[in-house]
């Protein structure tokens, strides 16, 4: 809102100013013919006492008439005035030499510097961009490397675990087999022991039984025969 108000106030102020200023050419555009004539008349009056005196003297009147005609005359609008050419030409030459000496080199130098700076800034930006891209690529490569390394480590760990598992399994199998063979051997030993024990028991039982059978079954004749046989044996030596 304040901006709008300021704009309106500015426009109004500018309009007022222009109203006054643009009216100036009316006054500035040289003398009016009437003013010139009056001025000539006043001039003549001051010089010769009174206008009547001028009117009476033919020569003076002609002079006044000529002066008043001069108010109607003006320089040709199309033929250039020498003094204006001199001042304008001098101004143009001075300006031209200044521009050659200082103005153009300075401004064009500044423009060239800026263009160069922009170009170098763009180059720097390009370099920075490519550097950033390179750094990014490096990072990605490092990341990929780390990832593959991690995979390698995991792979190694898995392989080691597999190997360890295989070794443990093999050892466990060996132990189981060993225990089985040992158990089998123990069982064999126990069985043969038991067999021996059994044989011992069986033979004991059999021999015991044989002893009792022999004891009760050997009759007197048999006993006597045994004694006789013994005697013969002793006798034979």
């Amino acid at each position, binding site marked *: 809102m304040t901006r709008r108000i300021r704009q309106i106030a500015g426009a109004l102020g500018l309009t007022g100013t222009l109203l006054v200023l643009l009216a100036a050419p009316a006054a500035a555009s040289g003398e009016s013919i009437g003013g010139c004539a009056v001025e000539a008349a006043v001039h003549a009056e001051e010089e010769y006492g009174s206008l009547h005196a001028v009117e009476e003297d033919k020569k003076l009147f002609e002079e006044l008439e000529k002066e008043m005609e001069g108010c109607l005359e003006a320089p040709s609008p199309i033929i250039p005035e020498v003094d204006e050419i001199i001042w304008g030409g001098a101004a143009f030459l001075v300006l031209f030499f200044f521009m050659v000496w200082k103005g153009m080199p300075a401004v064009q130098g500044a423009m060239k510097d800026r263009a160069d700076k922009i170009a170098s800034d763009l180059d720097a930006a390009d370099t920075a961009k490519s550097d950033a891209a390179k750094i990014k690529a490096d990072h990605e490569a490092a990341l990929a490397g780390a990832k593959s390394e991690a995979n390698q480590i995991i792979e190694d760990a898995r392989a080691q675990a597999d190997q360890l598992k295989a070794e443990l399994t093999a050892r466990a199998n060996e132990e189981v087999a060993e225990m089985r063979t040992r158990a089998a051997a123990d069982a064999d030993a126990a069985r043969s022991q038991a067999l021996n024990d059994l044989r011992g028991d069986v033979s004991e039982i059999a021999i015991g039984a044989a002893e009792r059978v022999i004891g009760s079954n*050997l009759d007197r004749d048999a006993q006597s025969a045994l*004694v006789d046989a013994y005697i013969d044996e002793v006798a034979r030596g």
Partner: protein
Amino acid sequence: MADDRIGGYADALLAVAAAEGASDVVEDELFRVAEAVRSNDNLLATLSDRNLPVERRQGVVEDLLGSSAHPTTTALVSMVVGTGRGADLPAIVDETVARSAAGRNATLARVRSAIDLTDDQKSRLAAAIKSKTGSDVEIRVVIDESVLGGVITEIGDDVIDGSVRSRMTQLRESFS
């Protein structure tokens, strides 16, 4: 010491038996008694138990031998048991028999058998042993059921074993 005492008792027993005039019978009966005592631990313990009164020990001897044995035999055994030497009775009797045989220039051969041997068998055995060892032997048979069959002859420290029992023992050892 012990041998002196055993030898003393053996000489005493020989002397008494000779004096009574029944040496053979008495000797034979003493041998049987000694074998019976040797094979019967209860009897040996009873007879050698000094805590029992002498009359009680001698009473056992009377009960065992009184009716069947020669009076001299009974008296001799009763004497040995009465003096408290019951435990040494088998050794004393062995010594007695051995000295008696030695007196007749012979060696005692203890023959263990399940049955008693006939005289013929005894004489043939004595002859066989003599041909082998070169000395006369007096056969004294010990009836031992545990021999089962056959004969075991002990001459001093030599043993000639032809018993069924030893065969059985060999058989048992071969099995185990």
